[in-house]
């Protein structure tokens, strides 16, 4: 089995209005990984995704799925779209049916599966996205978050090898955004490769295994979250902020509160475990920590900072 499930090899694409959306994109998606694609609006993320399941055809370069070059005859396209599913950003332009159940059944039915199998897949997808209770509700009476879940279930029911989701947390409140990210973690645990596009560096940092940074239709950087987010020059070029966790960690390290050789933590809990607790002698409570230079600090009765 090839190591990379999807590959874009110097893909170029221009829209009819002349916008050069992709200018030689080189991107290889590791099989079974959680991949985040970062980049500002207009960087070409969505255009690239549409190449990954054959909606758009590259003007130059190649797209490979599972090591084989994508071909554009009807049968090959159907095979590709069965394996690579896209959840679009706006659920209102993806959901075409007023019935949630019928909506989700559309994809698997197109795969030519028997009715019983389709029914099983729809039920499973609804369970995985926790929308079984919405089965008999009409699409137009759902909230935005619920519609988002239906649009994810749409693709899950097709059981693709790769799920691509364009800005899954846009317009979601923090709680629902986190639930959606958890959902993608579970989907990935089942062996599906998940690709997300996002602007949210904090989310990308804690969620992804591998990160691509796109700008002006090319990939300008890639690597593990630790690599990418410690590359200050790359972040500056891409106009991205450092994740707050990385920033805090770097600041703590620079001030000598953390040893320099520790690995970058992936979550706040990990970071807090790294910070040593100092006990004030005698009381057992936490001792005050002075970030300032000891010499400039006035003597303190509560601790022996000056004396030591």
């Amino acid at each position: 089995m090839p190591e990379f499930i999807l590959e874009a090899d110097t893909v170029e694409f221009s829209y009819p209005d002349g916008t050069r959306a992709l200018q030689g994109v080189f991107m290889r998606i590791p099989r079974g990984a959680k991949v985040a694609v970062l980049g500002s609006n207009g960087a070409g993320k969505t255009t690239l995704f549409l190449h990954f399941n054959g909606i758009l055809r590259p003007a130059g370069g190649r797209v490979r799925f599972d090591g084989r070059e994508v071909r554009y005859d009807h049968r090959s396209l159907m095979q590709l779209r069965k394996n690579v599913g896209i959840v679009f950003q706006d659920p209102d332009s993806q959901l075409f049916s007023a019935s949630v159940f019928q909506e989700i059944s559309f994809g698997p039915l197109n795969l030519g599966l028997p009715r019983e199998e389709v029914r099983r897949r729809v039920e499973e997808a609804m369970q995985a996205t926790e929308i079984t209770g919405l089965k008999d509700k009409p699409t137009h009476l759902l909230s935005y978050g619920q519609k988002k879940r239906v649009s994810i279930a749409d693709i899950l029911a097709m059981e693709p090898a790769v799920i691509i989701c364009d800005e899954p947390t846009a317009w979601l409140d923090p709680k629902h955004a986190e639930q959606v990210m958890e959902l993608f973690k579970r989907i990935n645990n089942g062996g599906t490769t998940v690709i997300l596009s996002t602007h949210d560096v904090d989310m990308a940092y804690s969620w992804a295994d591998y990160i691509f940074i796109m700008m002006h239709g090319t990939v300008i950087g890639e690597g593990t979250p630790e690599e990418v987010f410690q590359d200050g020059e790359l972040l500056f070029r891409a106009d991205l902020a450092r994740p707050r966790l990385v920033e805090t960690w770097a600041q703590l390290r620079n001030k000598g509160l953390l040893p320099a050789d520790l690995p970058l933590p992936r979550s706040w809990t990990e970071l807090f475990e790294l910070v040593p607790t100092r006990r004030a002698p005698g009381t057992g409570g936490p001792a005050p920590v002075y970030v300032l230079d000891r010499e400039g600090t006035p003597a303190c009765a509560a601790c022996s900072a000056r004396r030591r």
Partner: protein
Amino acid sequence: MFAIDQYAYTSRLRPVHPGEKLAFALVTMVICLASVSPAAPLAVLLIMTGAVLFRAGIPWRFYLKLMTLPLSFLIIGVLTVAVSISTGPPPPLLSGRTLGGITIGFTAASLQLAVLLFVKSLGAVSCLYFLSLTTPMVEVISLLRRFKVPALFVELMSLIYRFIFVIMETAEKMYVAQSSRWGYASIKTAYISLGQLVANLFGKSYHRSQALFTALQSRCYNGDLRVLETPRAPSRSNIMLIAAVDLFLAVLALYTGGGLIARIHP
């Protein structure tokens, strides 16, 4: 219109097989329209109103409001039937007046006909309201699909139904955005704003249709919007009840058929 849609999804008759509801509404409506005496239409009106209020649990205020909607059309229509204008020798008027050879007034026959028309129309309307207040559009479309109505028709219907709400929402947002910038402050600006809204809405809808097509394509769309139906078991007792009610109405219509009018014109 949207309230009807919401009631359809939440009415107590929602779990009933849509085929049964459709059959009940249609057969009853046919009896109502075929009847030549007001007795059967009156019974239809009563039965349907009872079903909507007590079985489906629709609030009576809302139902009353719905029933008054067709009233203005109905009253104008009925008046033109009731009032007879003649230039010849005056017919046996119940009340009326002759002015310069033209007689305007009510005859017994025209009055009877007007009453019949009135109750028939209201009866038929109540049948349609029963259907639309208890059966969601999705289920009606499913039925049509099962009756082998051409796919093009059914698909268009379901897409239109889905996108009425999406486009309405878009229009609403645009309206709010415009009026928050004084877009509807005077009649002149209102006309300009409305024109822009409509033009914009068309553009947006076109854009949306393209996006929808892309999304469908990425799910292996190949020209057919095939979806899976959830099978519903018909209920024997419901079918019996419907048959009994409609049989009663048919007998009533036949028994009173022609009775009132025949007595006037022996």
